[in-house]
C-alpha cells in the first residue's frame, strides 16, 4: 500500500475574483519510507501539494489517498485525528512551528496532546535533535537552527507515518540545514517514516531518495538515484526541462521521431 497516492489532483483557488489553477492533474505515488524532495520554482504549487498531503486543503478535483485512506471521504474530526496521529509537519519559517513562550519539551508535548503525551519520547526526540540540554529555555529564545530542529522534533512528536516539511532549510546555514536533513532521513530510516520535503535547495534533493519537480502545477520531472527523468503526463504531455529551453524554446515547433524505446524531439523550422 502506498504511503501517498495522488490521482489526478487539481487544486483551484480564487484570488481577487480570479480563479488560479495551482495544481493540475497531479499523479504521484510515494511508497512508505521514501524520502521525497518536492522541487520547483516559486509558485509552481509545491506548498499547495504539501498542504493537500497534510489534509489542510481538500482537492478541487481528483483523489488523494494517505496510507490507503481516501482523504476526501474523511470528515473534519477524522481528518484531525489522521493529522494528529499519522502526519507531522514542519512549516516554512522555523518560528512558526513553535510556541515561543513554551520550552522545547512543552512544544513537543503540545503536539502530542491530541494523541497521547509520551514524556519519554519527548526526551528522546529532543536528544535526537540535539536539544536535550535546552529543554528549559523558551523556544522563542532559540536560534533559527535550534528552532528548526525543534520544529522537526515537534513534527515527529507522535511518530508520524508521513512527515511533511516546507523549506526546512531555507533560513539555515549549510551545516544547520544539513543537520535538519539528517534528522529527516534518520526518521525515515529509523521509524520508516515517509518524508516529503519542499525545497529549493538542490543539495537537499540530492540528499533524499527521490525528487519530484513541480512546474506550472504539474509533476514535470522526477529524479531517482541521481538521475532525472521527465514525466509523461495523463494527456501525453512532457515538460521540457528549463536547461534545454535554449535548444527547444517554449513556443517553438518540434518534430517527434519514434525510436525503438521512445521518441526524440527535434526543433523544426517551418
Amino acid at each position, binding site marked *: 500500500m502506498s504511503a501517498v497516492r495522488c490521482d489526478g489532483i487539481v487544486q483551484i483557488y480564487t484570488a481577487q475574483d480570479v480563479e488560479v489553477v495551482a495544481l493540475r492533474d497531479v499523479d504521484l505515488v510515494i511508497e512508505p519510507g521514501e524520502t521525497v524532495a518536492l522541487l520547483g520554482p516559486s509558485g509552481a504549487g509545491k506548498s499547495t501539494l504539501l*498542504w493537500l498531503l*497534510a489534509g*489542510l*486543503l481538500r482537492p478541487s478535483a481528483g483523489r488523494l489517498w494517505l496510507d490507503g485512506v481516501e482523504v476526501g471521504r474523511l470528515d*473534519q*474530526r477524522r481528518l*484531525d*485525528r*489522521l*493529522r*494528529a*496521529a499519522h*502526519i507531522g*509537519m514542519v*512549516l*516554512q*519559517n522555523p518560528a*512558526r*512551528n513553535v*510556541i*515561543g*513562550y*513554551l520550552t522545547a519539551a*512543552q512544544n513537543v508535548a*503540545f*503536539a502530542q*496532546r*491530541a*494523541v497521547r503525551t509520551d514524556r519519554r519520547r519527548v526526551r528522546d526526540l529532543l536528544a535526537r535533535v540535539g536539544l536535550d540540554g535546552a529543554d528549559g529555555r523558551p523556544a522563542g529564545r532559540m536560534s533559527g537552527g535550534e528552532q528548526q530542529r525543534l520544529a522537526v522534533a*515537534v513534527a515527529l*512528536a507522535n511518530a508520524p507515518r508521513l512527515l511533511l516539511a516546507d523549506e526546512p532549510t531555507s533560513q539555515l546555514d549549510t551545516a544547520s540545514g544539513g543537520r535538519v536533513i539528517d534528522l529527516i532521513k534518520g526518521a525515515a530510516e529509523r521509524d520508516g517514516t515517509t518524508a516529503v520535503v519542499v525545497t529549493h535547495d538542490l543539495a537537499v534533493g540530492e540528499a533524499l531518495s527521490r525528487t519530484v519537480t513541480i512546474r506550472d502545477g504539474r509533476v514535470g520531472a522526477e529524479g531517482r538515484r541521481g538521475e532525472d527523468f521527465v514525466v509523461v503526463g495523463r494527456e501525453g504531455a512532457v515538460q521540457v526541462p528549463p536547461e534545454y529551453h535554449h535548444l527547444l524554446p517554449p513556443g517553438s515547433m518540434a518534430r517527434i521521431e519514434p525510436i525503438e524505446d521512445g521518441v526524440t524531439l527535434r526543433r523544426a523550422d517551418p
Partner: protein
Amino acid sequence: MILRGLWERRALSLIVLLIAIVPIASAAVGPLYSAAARTTIVRDAIASAPVEGRGWRYTTTRGDLPARLAAFTAGTDLTAPPIFGMETNSGRPGDKLSYPIMWQGGQCEHLKRVAGRCPTATKELMASRTSGFKVGDEILLSSIVTTQPGGITFVPAPLQVVGLYEPISAADPFWFGRTLFDTGGEPGGERTDPLFTVPQTRYDTYAINAGNAKGEGWTDYGIVYLDPRRLTGSDVGTLTRMQATAEAVGRDSDAIVFSYLADTLKAITTQTGSLGVPTLLVIAQLVGLGWLLLFQTVGDLVRARAPEIALARLRGHGRIRVWLFALAEPLLVLAAAVPLGLALGRGAAGLMVGALLPAGIPVDIPPEALWAGAAATLGGVLAAALAAYRTATRPIIEEWRRTPRRSARGWVLDAVVLAVTAIGLVELLATGVITDVSGQSSSALAVPGLMALGVALLAGRALPVLSGRLFPVTRRHGGIGPFLALRQVARGPVTAGSVIVLGTAFGLATFAVSAWTATQGDYRAVAAFHNGAATALTIQPVEPRALAAALDEIDPAATLAAPVIKLPGPPQLVATDPVRLAMVGHWQPELAGGTSLAKAAAGLSGPRTPRVWVRGDRFRLSLSHGPPPKSYTARLLVTLRIPGGPQPVAIPLGQLRGDEGGDYAWNLPPACARAACELRAVHGELIGPQNLETTPFLPVKVTGLAVRDAGVWNTLDTPTWRVDDDPDENDGRFTISTIGNQTLRPATYGAEIPAIVVGPVGRRLLPGLDQAFAVPAKQVAAAAAAPGLDAHGVLVDLEEADRIAYGVHPKATYEVWTTATDTTALERALREQGITVVSARHMDDLVASYAGEGPGLALMLLLVSALAAAVLALGRTVLALHTAARRRGYELAALEASGARVAALRSSLLLEQVLTMAVGTLAGLAAGLLAARVALSRVPQFAQPPVTPPLPHEVAPEPVALVIGAALLASLLAAAVVSELLLRGIKVERLRDQP
C-alpha cells in the same frame, strides 16, 4: 500554559483586562448607585412623612400586646423598639367633659412640667396646665373606681394630681400624630387634654366601663416606628408585606392598626419607579457600549493567538480542544475582570454616593450589580467566542498566507441597528415620550445610545469611502504622507471599528453632558420659582398681620424679606406683600409677556379701607329699624373673625325690639378679649310663618358700634358698608327678609381679588387663606410662572387675602422669603419678634433635592459612566491604531529603505490617526447633539414633572465643547506620541525578518 501565554501577551492582556474592568465597573455602578439612591429615597420618604406615615400604631383591648408586636416585627430589624401605652376614658361626676387617662412609655420626657412632678406611683396623675386642676387636687372619675374597704360597692378611686404639664410640641412624633392636646391652649369641645398616670393605676383600680376585673377596660397600644437608619432600598418589599400584615390584622382581628404608611409607600414606589426606568436606560446603554468596546478588544486577544490556534489545529487537536484553547486566555482575563470590575464599581459608586447622596447611605452590592457586571462581561465572552469561532474554523493555511483574504464587512448588523434606531426615533417623535416613569415606551428607551451607534456606523462606513475618493488626489498632490494615510484609512480594518467605538462613546457622552447641563438649568429654573426667592424660611403659623408687622419691624426698608402664606388649592394660592415680593421674589419678565415683577405686583393691592377690630368682652350694635312684619320676629347676628381659627363665629345680638331701633349687645368669645377680633358681617333672620304669597322684610340701618373692654364701652368708627347683591347701599342699611336676605359687611375688600395668574384659572373661585373659595381672581398679569407656585394658581396680596378670609386654614404653610443666603440674622430677628423658624430652604437645596430624585440620579449616573466610557473608547482607539500601525512596520521599513523620508512617514501616521479619531469624535458630537435635540425634552428629569415653570432645556455649550475639545486634544497628543513610538521601531534591519 494559559498564564504563560497571558504573560507573553502581557501588554495586550493588561489592556484587555483594563478595558473589561471599566465596562463591568460602569455597568455595576448603575445598580450600586441605584440601590443607594433607592435607600436615600426610602429614608427621605420616611423621614419627611407625617409621623403616622413612619410606622404603625397597634391598638388592642385583648392584652398580649408585646407578643403581638413581636410577631408583627419578627424577622426584620427595620423598626425601633416599640413605644407601649395604655389609655381609657372617663367622665367626672357632674361634669360633661371626658377625661382621657393614659400612660405612654417615656411620657415624662415629652411633656414640659410646669408644676409638681411626674406621676411615679399608682393613682397619681399629671394634668394639663389648661385643665384647671392644681397640684394636690384629688380627682374622682366616674369610671375609674375602687371598692370600699370591706365592701362590694364601687366608688370612684381618688386620683392625686401630682404635677401639671404643657405639651412640648403637639407635633412631637412620640405621640404618633395624635391630637391629644388642644393647640389653642383652651379646652375644645367635650374632651380635655389627657391625664397622665402610671401603669399601676390600671391594675389597682377597676374601669367600670368594661368588665369587673382589675386592669380591664383599658386599651393597650404600641407604636412601632421604622428606623430610617436601618432601611435600605431593598426593604420596600418587606415594608409592603408588613403594611399588608398590619391591614390584615386590622381586618381580621379585634386589633386596630393605624398608619399612613401606605401613603408613604406609595410615594416611595413613585419615586423608586421614576428611578428604575431611567436607570435601566442608562445601564442598558452602558452595557451596550461596554459590549462594543469588549467586542473590539477581546477579539484582538483571540486574534493575537491565531498562530498558536493554527498550530493546535495543524497538530490535529480536536474542535473542542481548539475552542477551549482559543477561549482560555480571554475567558481567564474576563473572569479576573469581573471581581476587579465589581470592586472598582463598588469604589466608584462609593465615591458617587459620598459626593451626591446624603451622608450615611450604605453602598451595598445588590444582585442587580452582579447581573449587570456579568451582562457587561457577556459581551466579551461573546466576542471571544465569535473571534475563536472564526479563528478556529477558517482554513488553517490562511494563517500563513502572505496576503490574507479580505473579508467584507456585512451590512446586516448595521441595517438592524439603523432600523431599530429609526423605529425608536419615530416612536419618540410620534409619542413624545422617551421613557415615562411607567416605562411603557420601552422601545424608545435606547434612542440616544442607538442614535449614537447609528451615526457612528454611518460615519464608520463613510470615512473609508471618502478617503478612497480623496485617494487619487493625494497621488498627485501633497506628497507621500497624505497618500499613505488616506490609503490606510480607506482600506484599514481599524478605521471603521475605531470610528464606531468613538462615535458611539462620544455620542453618548455628548448626550449625557447635554442632558446634564440642560437638566441642571431646568432644576435651577424650577427651584427658583418653586422656592419663590433665594431662601424660603418656613415658620410656625402666625397671624398674617402679626407676620407682616414683624417684618415691618425687622426690615422697614422692605428690601430683604417678604411674608408668604401658601394654600395648596387648586388653584394654588400664594399670598404675600407685593412691595416686598417685588424686591425678593424670583421673576422672569419674558414668562409674563415682558411685565416686570414690580409692575405686576403693584396691581395686586386694593383700596385700604379701615377694618373693624373688636377687642373686649362684649359687643354692642346700635340700629334703627321699624317694627318686624306682623307675626314675625327678627333676630340679629354679627359674624366675627376670631384670631387663630379658620372659621367665622356668629354671635347673636338678640331679637329686634320695638319699632325705632336701639342698642343690641352680646358677649364676645373669650378669644376676642386676648386678641382683636374682626367684625365681618351683620345680618338678621326673620322667624315666623312660611308665607309664600308675600315676602316679609324689615329694613335696618346700623348707626353705631361699640365694644366693652375692662368694663368700659368704647365707640368704634363706623366703617364704609356694603351689602351683598346691592352695591348702592353703603350707609349701613340692609334688609332682613325671608327671601333675598341681605348681609351687611364692612367694605374692606372687593368682589374680586387682584391676582397674578399662572395657568387657566379663569373665573374659578380662589381658595383664599381659609380655603373658603369665596372670591374669584381679577387678573392683573398673566405669567407662565410665578414665585412660589408649582402648579396653576394665583399670587395675591396677603393683606387683600387676609381681609377676605375668616382665618388661615391649617393646610396653609407660612414662609418668609428672603434674598439672603445666610439667614442667621434674619432668623434671629424673627425669633425676637416671636416667630418660630422651622426650617430654611435655599434654592440650592431644592436643586439638590431634584438631583436626588430618580431621574436626576439616573442622569448623573449616565454622565459619569458615559464620560468614563468615552475615555476608555479613546484609549482603545489609540491602542488599535498603534497595533495596526505596528503590523505595518515591515511596510514602513521598506518605504524608508526605498527613500521615503521620516517626516513623510510621521505625517502619514499622524494624519491617519488624527483623521480616524477626529472623525469618530466629531461623529459622536453630531450624534449626541442630534440625540439631545430630539430626545432631551422627553427625557424624564423630575419624579413628578413640574406644571410650572416651562422648562427651558437649554444645553450649556461650554461643557460640551470642553468634552469634545479635550477629546480632540487628547487624540492629537496620543497620535503624536504613538507616531513617534512607531517611528522609533521602524528600522531597515527589520526587512531581514519575514513579513
